[in-house]
């Protein structure tokens, strides 16, 4: 899920304390995904168990700094390289991924382009289905809804890209 990937993406910029990760996560994603500090530590300890992060020094207040491992970097790379499929999308995942890409990926444009290609492919399939759904109005309207949704996503991706350049 994307809390884990979001935290890994932030750690790919350098070691962080849990409270820093929480603040940066919320700063990147705006109000779309508030996190509590408990979620951050649970996520970090599971990621540590899976070998994706490792704890470093503890400061005077007993806080632990975390750094990302090679396996963790590979996992972030895979996440950014895999477009969100329309079927398994909690809508926010794309927003989170793009926010993280802009904040932490060395080539956010390529993440945007990969998503654009995938979303356009979806839209081509929907449009083909609509051509074949000739007589059936209800079916066509459902397809229209999905087409508009994909269209909005493409416009938003263009908008993200403009913001980068």
């Amino acid at each position, binding site marked *: 899920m994307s809390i884990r990937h979001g935290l890994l993406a932030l750690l790919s910029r350098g070691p962080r304390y849990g409270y820093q990760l929480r603040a940066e996560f919320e700063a990147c994603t705006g109000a779309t995904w508030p996190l509590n500090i408990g979620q951050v530590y649970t996520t970090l300890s599971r990621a540590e168990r899976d070998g994706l992060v490792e704890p470093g020094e503890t400061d005077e207040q007993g806080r632990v700094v975390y750094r990302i491992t090679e396996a963790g970097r590979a996992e972030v790379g895979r996440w950014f390289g895999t477009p969100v499929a329309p079927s398994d999308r909690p809508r926010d995942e794309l927003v989170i991924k793009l926010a993280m890409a802009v904040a932490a990926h060395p080539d956010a444009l390529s993440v945007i*382009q990969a998503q654009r*290609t995938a979303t*356009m492919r979806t*839209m081509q399939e929907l*449009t083909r289905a609509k051509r074949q759904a000739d007589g059936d109005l209800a079916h066509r309207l459902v397809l229209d809804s999905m087409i508009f949704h994909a269209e909005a996503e493409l416009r938003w991706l263009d908008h993200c890209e403009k913001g980068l350049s």
Partner: protein
Amino acid sequence: MTLLTLESVSRTYGEVKALDGVDLTVAAGELVAVMGPSGSGKSTLLNLAGGLDRPSSGTVAVAGEDLARVRDLAALRRRSVGYVFQELNLIHSLTAVENVMLPRELDGVAARQARQEALAVLDEVGLREQAEAFPDELSGGQRQRVAIARALVGERRLVLADEPTGALDTATGDEILTLLRARADAGAAVLLVTHEPRYAAWADRVIFLRDGRIVDASLLESAR
């Protein structure tokens, strides 16, 4: 069968690299859409594909013929290539059917036959009734369909359309795409420039241009 081939095609205007090392093929029966921000080289690509402009380097071939070696480029354009532009370039003193006949007459086809062919294509685009109307008597969508009929007449196998949906409303835009799609399904190669995702989605393939280059989706492909 491949009807259009671009190999490492570049086009520079002074300092500006309008197109930079583009490779592209379009096969018979295929509708390919080109998307990209303003200034990314879409129109340049289309003009080169239709022999309206020459590449600074690289080769463009239409139906296997290298355009740099063709003796009578104008004739090849009239016979094999149909263009639809956003500015329609209809001749206002000619009726719809006369506009559509024009490229065939230029090609030496007898007026009688050219007229019959033009009427058949006007029928195909749903304008049989308006054949004798002048452009000013038609709606924007009807004028655009006349322009498309003119691009299709004479069975031209490569159709190039640069923002053909221009300022048309959605329903009219869909009609235009229906026509282009039908022509591809009937065996033409169609290359369509558009900035509207909903029209690009009619294509078999969508390519994205950025700063004169085709953007690849390697990140996507490598994750598959």
